């Protein structure tokens, strides 16, 4: 009786995910060998004799390795894989990404002057060729915000977009030396939001989640994407 209750509980648990066991037993060679025994029962056999009620239970005699070796092997393999992935990712950041050369080539893109021209030009230009298309787009947006804010609104096409662009208040920077300009860009980009973001009152994204701070595209929060652009777009 205890065995039957146990089997009933086990049976119910097993039925959670579609008892493959019966189907496999029906198809396996084991059942072919025991056809004479099983054929007489019909469908009743499938329902009543669940996993632990097999005619011949799995034999545990003569196991060479530990009986949980598959379990241990699986979890150890999983842990190794995850740690390996972590180290590969960390190493990649140190040695550099493969498309660095492409980026250098695309850096020589000519300067862009007007907002409308920039954006439409950028959208047409080979963003597929250069994976850094974001960089050019950001340059163009940056200039838009500095000089031609109003022109950018219809181009951007999002109501919140101009709100973000208007944060930047400093003067024209086109004549500045490279180093200073980089700093300004980075500074600007801290407040920069790409079009798809939540239009909330919080203009500052720097006070975000500590985990997300300067966290990258990995966390796709609308505000933190701004922070992510800080790193993505130079």
């Amino acid at each position, binding site marked *: 009786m205890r065995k039957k209750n146990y089997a009933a509980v086990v049976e119910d648990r097993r039925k959670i995910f579609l008892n493959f066991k019966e189907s496999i037993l029906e198809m396996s060679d084991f059942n072919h060998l025991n056809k004479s025994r099983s054929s007489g029962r019909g469908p009743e056999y499938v329902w009543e004799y669940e996993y632990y009620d097999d005619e011949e239970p*799995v034999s545990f005699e003569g196991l060479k390795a530990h009986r949980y070796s598959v379990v241990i092997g699986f979890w150890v393999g999983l842990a190794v894989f995850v740690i390996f992935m972590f180290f590969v990712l960390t190493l990649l950041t140190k040695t550099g990404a493969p498309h660095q050369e492409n980026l250098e080539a695309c850096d020589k893109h000519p300067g862009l002057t007007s907002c409308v021209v920039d954006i439409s030009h950028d959208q047409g230009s080979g963003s597929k060729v250069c994976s850094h298309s974001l960089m050019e787009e950001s340059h163009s947006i940056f200039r838009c915000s500095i000089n031609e804010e109003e022109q950018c609104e219809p181009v951007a096409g999002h109501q919140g977009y101009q709100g973000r662009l208007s944060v930047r208040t400093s003067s024209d920077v086109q004549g500045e030396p490279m180093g200073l300009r980089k700093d300004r860009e980075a500074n600007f980009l801290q407040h920069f939001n790409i079009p798809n973001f939540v239009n909330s009152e919080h203009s500052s994204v720097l006070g975000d989640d500590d985990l997300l701070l300067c966290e990258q595209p*990995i966390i796709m929060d609308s505000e933190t994407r701004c922070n992510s652009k800080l790193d993505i777009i130079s």
Partner: protein
Amino acid sequence: MENITGVYANETDCREVQIPNEIFFTIAMVSLGENLLVVVAVIRNKNLHSPMYCFICSLALFNTISSLSKTWENIMLVFTNTGHLNSRGDSVLKVDDVMDSLLCMSFIGSIFSFLAIAVDRYVTIFHALRYHNIMTMKRAKAILSAIWAFCGCTGVVMVVFFHNVAIMMCFIILFVFALVLILFLYVHMFLLARHHARKIASLPGSTKHHNLRGALTLTILFGVFIACWSPFFLHLLIIMVCPQNPYCECYRSLFQIHVILLMSHAVIDPAIYAFRSAELRSTFRKMFLCSDSRLCH
């Protein structure tokens, strides 16, 4: 029958590891609460009606459905154990089938939602300015409808045709394919982000620290997904590949632990995807604290 009982008294057998119903209940309740919260917050806040949050909401909905059906099943199990329900009755089996198909649907739906979120993030990164043209709300809704329809059909098909090994293989292949694609998308995004981070390495602010953080975040995101999902899928594989092997038998004895892992992923999901959003968190605050309206104004 009694002979078999004698065999199972053998100590070297791998008895199925039983997990108390209370733990199932607790995890299901916590998961249900969290995911319902996310769904309600996304629906109530107009700011969150964007494709990105639609996908996160869809993920939360699938998790909600899986928690609900697990809870329902646990309740039925409790009734069965106390003798109020005949576990072999016709109606009980039908209800069991419905629950199974809901669970299948929610699991496949979760996987597709992860994929949709990863693709959305990918488009955000690599096609930033054209994002609004590529991922309109209309397209997002179309994608979500397709996902839900596909998952609904697949859930029903899997329960009706579970005898068929090909269907199970499809399920597993789908999982592996989704895993590989998600990994590829995120690693590509990560590489681009790191590369640009190096370009502005002149900024004070420990690029190395950020690099580690990015790698850690990605590892956590992916590691949790793999750790929670792959034991169950390996279980499915093992049932098909080596049903009689004693080592495989010992792996299968941990079935309930694998189910617990699946459910706990539904608990961890909101923390990884939804709660990271400041807007969502502020919506939660408003929802809870503003039952007393003074605090909101």
